[in-house]
């Protein structure tokens, strides 16, 4: 796995745990263990997120602007991970053609 995916995987894992803790804390707002875990993970997330954005570009639109460039619209989007060749066979059945994929031309 390359560095980008590895880092994204870490962020994803931390975010997933944060979502779960968030829901738990909503109904257990004074649970000390959960509060501690949440604080630690939120800090970790902050650090990993920053690292990712500096190296590989924005994950959220709010980080999308540089001085002269709107990075947010750049690929990949989450659904851009498969190679087109792998999809082509099946996609022919639902009426999509390779030449329709505008995103590949830019």
């Amino acid at each position, binding site marked *: 796995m390359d560095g980008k995916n590895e880092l994204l995987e870490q962020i*994803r894992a931390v975010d997933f745990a944060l*979502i779960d803790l968030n829901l738990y804390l909503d109904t257990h707002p004074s649970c000390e263990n959960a509060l501690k875990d949440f604080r630690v993970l939120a800090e970790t997330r902050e650090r990993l997120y920053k690292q990712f954005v500096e190296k590989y570009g924005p994950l959220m639109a709010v980080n999308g602007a540089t001085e002269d460039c709107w990075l947010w619209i750049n690929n990949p989007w989450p659904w851009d991970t498969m190679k087109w060749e792998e999809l082509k066979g099946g996609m022919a059945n639902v009426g999509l053609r390779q030449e329709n994929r505008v995103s590949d031309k830019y």
Partner: protein
Amino acid sequence: MWVYDKKTEYPINIKKSDPRMAKLILTQYGGPNGELAASLRYLSQRYAMPNKESKAILTDIGTEE
């Protein structure tokens, strides 16, 4: 309000294309008993909640879905 994060919440690894399964999954997302409908129900129900815990949990479950 909705804020988009350019990543999935959980990793997906699609190994081959399967339009029939894709159709099923789309229905689970957007169909009459899908995630989208459920999330909007949570977000409507929260307005009738009597305490802060239940307002928060319905808001956050609706958001997560």
